[in-house]
C-alpha cells in the first residue's frame, strides 16, 4: 500500500503509541471502581507514571535520520471510506507526546490536596484528557485527529466548570465556545481536503498540490482554529479567564499541553499543506505574533492576580512560538518547537507554584502573598528558578528557545528582530516585579521585616514545601537546567523533520507561485508593502 512509504512501522515489542494512548483511558475506566480517595490518587499517579515509562522508548529508540513517521501502526478501520487507524510520530510530534506523558503525573501530584470534591470524577477526567491529548499528537489521519481534538474539549470544559474557581461558568463557556468555533472551521477544512483528494491520510495530504486559492481557504480555516488554540492576538481572550478559574491541574494541562496543539496544528496542517498560502500570509502572521508578544507582556505587567499574570505571559510566550513558526527558517522553527517544550515545563512549573501558595494562603493576589522570602525559603527558591526561566534567563531552558527564535528573526530581518525585543524586556519586567513582590515586600513597601511580623501579617503560619511538593519541582527544575545547558538531544530529534518541513514549503511555494494578476489586488499591494519592511 502506498501509505507505507511514509511510515516506519513499529518494531518495539509492544505497540507503543496505541499503548500510551489507551493506558490512560483504561485507567480512567478502572478508576471508576475505586472508592477510597487515597487509593484513587495513588492509582491515578501510577497510571500516568506507567504511561510515561511506556513512552520513554519514543525518546531512546527514535531514529534521527529519517523524516518518515516512526513507531507507526496501520490498521484498517472503515474500509468504505478508505479510513484507516494510522498513528505515528515524527521529530516534531514525538517531543510533544513526551511532554504530555511527562507533565501528566504532575497534574495528579499537584491536585493531591487541591481537589476537595468529586475526586473520582476528577481522576477520570484527567486520564481521559491524557488519552485525547496523546491522540491528537499521534494521529496521522485527519478524522482521528479531529475526533481527539474535539474529545479534549469536554474533559477540559469539565475541569474548569466543575473544579474551577468563582467565575467558573463564565470561563468554561467562553473556553468552550471559542475552541468550538475554531474547530468547526477545522472540520470544514478536513472535509474539503477529503473531497478534493479522497484521502484522510495526513502525509498524503501534504504531498498533494493545490491551487493557490484553495490553499488560501485551507490555510485560513486551519489557521483560525489553531490561532484560537495557541492563542494568538486577537483571539486570546478566553485564555486568561480559563487559566484563572481552572484548578491547578487544569491550568497546567492548559498551559503545558493544550496551547501546544495550536503550534502543532500550524506545523502539521498549515505549513506543509498550504505552503504557498503560508508564504503569502507570513508577514501578517509575523505581525500578529509580534503583537501577541508585546501585548501579552504588556498586559502581564499590570496584573495583580498571579495566575492572570502567568496567563498573559503565556500569550507572549506563544507569540514567540508563532513568530518562530512563521519565520520559516531553520532556527525559527527549531526555536518555536523548543519554546513549546520549554513553556510546557516552565509555565507548568509556575502554575504548580501558584497552586501551592493558593493552598496555603487561599489567595492568588500578589498583595496577599508578599514578603515570603524569609518565611518559606524553599518555595521562594523554586519560584525564583521558574520565574527566571520564564524571563529567558541564560542557562535556563527558555533562553535557548527564545534565542533561537530571535536568531531566526534577525536572520529574516533586523526589523522583525528588534520588534520582538520589547517582548523579552517585558518578560523580565513582569517576572521580576512578581518575584520582587512575592519574595521581598508587598506593594505598599512596608519597612523592615521580621519573621514574627510576617506570620501576623498572614494571619496563620505558612509551612514550607513538603516532600511531595519538593520532588515535583525538583524534577521540573532539573529539566529547566538540562534543556538550558544541553538542548542538543532535543534539537537533534527535530532536525530532520524541520529540514523536511522547510523543504516541503520551498517546494510547494515554488510550484504554485502567487500570480500577481489573479485577483486579490488590494491584499497583494498591502502585502508587498509589508514584505518590504520585513526584508530590511
Amino acid at each position, binding site marked *: 500500500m502506498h501509505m507505507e512509504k511514509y511510515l516506519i512501522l513499529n518494531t518495539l515489542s509492544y505497540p507503543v503509541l496505541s499503548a500510551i494512548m489507551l493506558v490512560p483511558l483504561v485507567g480512567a475506566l478502572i478508576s471508576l471502581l475505586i472508592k477510597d480517595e487515597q487509593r484513587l490518587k495513588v492509582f491515578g499517579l501510577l497510571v500516568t507514571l506507567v504511561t510515561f515509562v511506556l513512552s520513554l522508548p519514543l525518546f531512546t529508540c527514535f531514529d534521527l535520520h529519517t523524516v518518515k513517521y516512526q513507531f507507526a501502526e496501520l490498521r484498517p478501520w472503515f474500509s468504505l471510506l478508505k479510513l484507516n487507524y494510522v498513528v505515528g510520530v515524527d521529530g516534531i510530534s514525538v517531543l510533544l507526546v513526551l511532554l504530555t506523558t511527562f507533565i501528566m503525573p504532575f497534574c495528579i501530584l499537584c491536585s493531591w490536596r487541591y481537589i476537595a470534591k468529586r475526586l473520582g470524577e476528577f481522576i477520570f477526567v484527567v486520564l481521559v484528557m491524557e488519552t485525547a491529548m496523546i491522540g491528537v499528537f499521534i494521529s496521522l489521519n485527519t478524522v482521528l485527529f479531529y475526533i481527539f481534538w474535539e474529545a479534549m474539549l469536554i474533559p477540559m470544559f469539565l475541569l474548569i466548570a466543575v473544579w474551577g474557581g468563582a467565575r467558573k461558568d463564565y470561563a468554561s463557556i467562553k473556553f468552550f465556545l471559542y475552541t468550538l468555533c475554531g474547530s468547526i472551521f477545522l472540520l470544514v477544512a478536513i472535509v474539503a481536503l477529503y473531497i478534493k483528494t479522497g484521502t484522510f491520510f495526513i502525509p498524503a495530504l501534504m504531498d498533494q498540490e493545490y491551487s493557490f486559492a484553495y490553499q488560501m481557504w485551507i490555510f485560513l480555516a486551519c489557521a483560525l482554529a489553531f490561532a484560537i488554540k495557541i492563542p494568538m492576538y486577537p483571539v486570546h481572550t478566553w485564555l486568561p479567564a480559563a487559566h484563572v478559574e481552572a484548578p491547578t491541574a487544569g491550568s497546567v494541562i492548559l498551559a503545558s499541553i493544550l496551547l501546544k496543539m495550536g503550534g502543532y496544528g500550524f506545523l502539521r496542517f498549515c505549513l506543509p499543506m498550504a505552503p504557498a498560502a503560508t508564504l503569502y500570509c507570513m508577514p501578517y502572521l509575523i505581525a500578529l505574533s509580534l503583537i501577541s508578544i508585546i501585548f501579552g507582556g504588556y498586559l502581564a505587567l499590570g496584573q495583580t492576580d498571579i495566575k492572570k499574570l502567568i496567563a498573559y505571559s503565556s500569550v507572549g510566550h506563544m507569540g514567540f512560538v508563532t513568530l518562530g513558526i512563521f519565520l520559516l527558517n531553520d532556527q525559527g522553527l527549531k526555536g518555536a518547537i523548543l519554546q513549546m517544550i520549554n513553556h510546557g515545563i516552565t509555565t507548568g512549573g509556575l502554575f504548580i507554584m501558584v497552586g501551592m501558595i493558593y493552598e496555603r494562603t487561599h489567595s492568588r493576589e500578589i498583595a496577599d502573598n508578599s514578603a515570603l522570602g524569609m518565611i518559606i525559603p524553599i518555595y521562594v527558591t523554586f519560584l525564583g528558578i521558574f520565574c527566571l526561566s520564564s524571563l529567558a*534567563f541564560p542557562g535556563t531552558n527558555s533562553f535557548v528557545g527564545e534565542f533561537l527564535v530571535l536568531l531566526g528573526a534577525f536572520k529574516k530581518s533586523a526589523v522583525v*528582530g528588534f520588534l520582538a525585543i520589547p517582548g*523579552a524586556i517585558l518578560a523580565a519586567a513582569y517576572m*521580576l516585579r512578581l518575584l520582587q513582590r512575592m519574595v521581598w515586600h508587598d506593594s505598599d513597601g512596608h*519597612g523592615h521585616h521580621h519573621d514574627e511580623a510576617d506570620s501576623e501579617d498572614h494571619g496563620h503560619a505558612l509551612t514550607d514545601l513538603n516532600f511531595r511538593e519538593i520532588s515535583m519541582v525538583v524534577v521540573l527544575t532539573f529539566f529547566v537546567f538540562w534543556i538550558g545547558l544541553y538542548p542538543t538531544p532535543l534539537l537533534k530529534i527535530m532536525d530532520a523533520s524541520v529540514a523536511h518541513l522547510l523543504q516541503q514549503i520551498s517546494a510547494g511555494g515554488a510550484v504554485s507561485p502567487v500570480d500577481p494578476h489573479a485577483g486579490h489586488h488590494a491584499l497583494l499591494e498591502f502585502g508587498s508593502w509589508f514584505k518590504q519592511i520585513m526584508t530590511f
Partner: protein
Amino acid sequence: MDTIITSKILLTSALPMLTALLVMFSGKKPNLRESWSIIGALLTFLSVLNLLPHILAGGAYEFTLATLYPGVNIKFHLDGLGIMFAGTASFLWILAGFYCIGYMRGLDEHAQTRFYVCYAVSVGAAMGAAFAGNLFTLYLFYEIVSIFTYPLVAHHQDSEGYEGARKYIVYLMFTSKAFLLPAMVIIYVQCGTLDFCYTGIVNGIFPEGANKLLVVVSYLLCLFGFAKAGIMPLHNWLPSAMVAPTPVSALLHAVVVVKVGVFSTCRVMLSVFGIQLLQDLNLGIFTAYFVSFTIITASIIALSKSNLKARLAYSTISQLSYIILGVAMLTPNSITGGLVHIANHAFSKITLFFCAGAIFVACGKKDIKEFGGLGYRMPITMIAFGLASLSMIGVPGSAGFVTKWFLALGAMDISSIGLLVVLLASSLLNAGYFVPIFLKAFFGKVAPVDQGLSGSLESKPLIMFMVVPLLITSIISIILGIYPDLFLKIINVMVGA
C-alpha cells in the same frame, strides 16, 4: 605557547559557588560560616595563581562545558586579561572576607547567611565572566552577577533599600535584555559564532564584508548593554546601589560588579570587534570622546556630594571610564593603561570604601562635613585613605600614576590634545574631591558633638578586622605604583599577542 584544554579552569568559578553552599549549610554557626567564606576565598585565589605561570608564558587555557547550539557554547578561555581580573577580584575577596566579619558583626546586621551566600556566588560569577571564552558565557555570568547582587543591595529591606535595589535591577536587566540580547543575536547572525577571537586583539571575529551598519549597531548595543560599566547616561544605578552595606559597595561596586561591566566591554571591544575594525569604522575615537564626558561629568558631580559613599560612587563612575577610554584609543600603550587600571583602581577604590565602612562602624559618620579631627582618632584608616587617594589622583609612585602615564602616552600616540586635556582635567578634579577629605580629617574643625572625645577608635578587635585589610590594600596600591611589572607583563602578553 599553546592552549591547554583542561577542566581545571572550572575550579576557579566553582570554588566560590561551593563556598556559598557550605556557608548556606553552616548558617547557624557564624564562626564556621565566616571561616568557610575566607577559606573559599583563599582557595579561589590559589587556584588562579596556579594558572598564572602558563598564562605569563603566553599560553592559554580552554574548556567547553556545554553546547547549546553550534557556535553557542558555555566555553571558558583564560588569557591575560581574564587572569588579571580574576586574580585581583579573588585576592580582594580574601581581604573583604575579613572585613565583612568586622562590619557585619560590628553593626549586628540581620540575614548574614544570605549576605555571605550571595557575596560568594557573585564573586564566583565574576570569576566565570573573567574566564568566559565566548559572548554567551560572558552574558550568562554577567546576568548571574545581576541577580545575586540584588539581595545584597536590598539587604537592609527598608524602603530605601528596596528603592535602590529596584533601580539597580531595572537598569541592569533592561539594558541587558534591550541591548545585549539583540547585540548577541546580530553578532551570531553576522559571524556564525559567539566565540571570542583567541589570536590577538587586532582582528575580531567579524568576517570580511560584514554589514557595516549592523556592526556599528551591535557595537553600540554592546557599549550600552553592559550597563555595569557605568557609562553615562546609564550610570544611575550605581549611586542608588550604595544603600547596600559597605562591604558590598567595596567588593562588589568597586571591584566585582562594575569591573565585570568594564571587563565585558573591553573584552567585546578587543576580542569580538578587534581594534582593526573599530579603527576602520572610527568607533574607537567616538567611544573615547563619549566616555570622556562621563569622566569629567562624574568627577564634577562627585565634588558636590558630601556623603562619602556617594562621592566614592561618582568617583568610581569616572574612574571606570578611564579603562574604557584606554581601550578605545586603540594603541598598545593606551590599552595597557586602560587594562592595568582594572587592577589599580580595584586596590585603591576598595581601600576607600573599606575606610568609609570602618568610619561608619566605628563612629557612625557618613558625611564628610563631620569628619573633623577624625584623623587623630582613626589614624591608620585615614592614612590608608590618603594613600589610596594619592593613587586615585595619579601621583607618581602610586598605582594610579602608572595608568595615567600609559593613557597619556596613548593620547599622544594618536595625537589627541583633547583627550590629554581630559586626563589632566580629571586628575585635577580627583584631587579636588579627595584632598579635602584628608585635610578635613586631620586639620578640620572638630564637630561640636565630638568635642572632648579622644582616644583611638581602632583598638577594638572588630574594628581591627576592618583596619588591617584596608591597610593592606592601601599599601598594595602604592606597591603597584612602584613595581607595576606583574600586571604590565600579563597585559603585554595580551596586547602583544
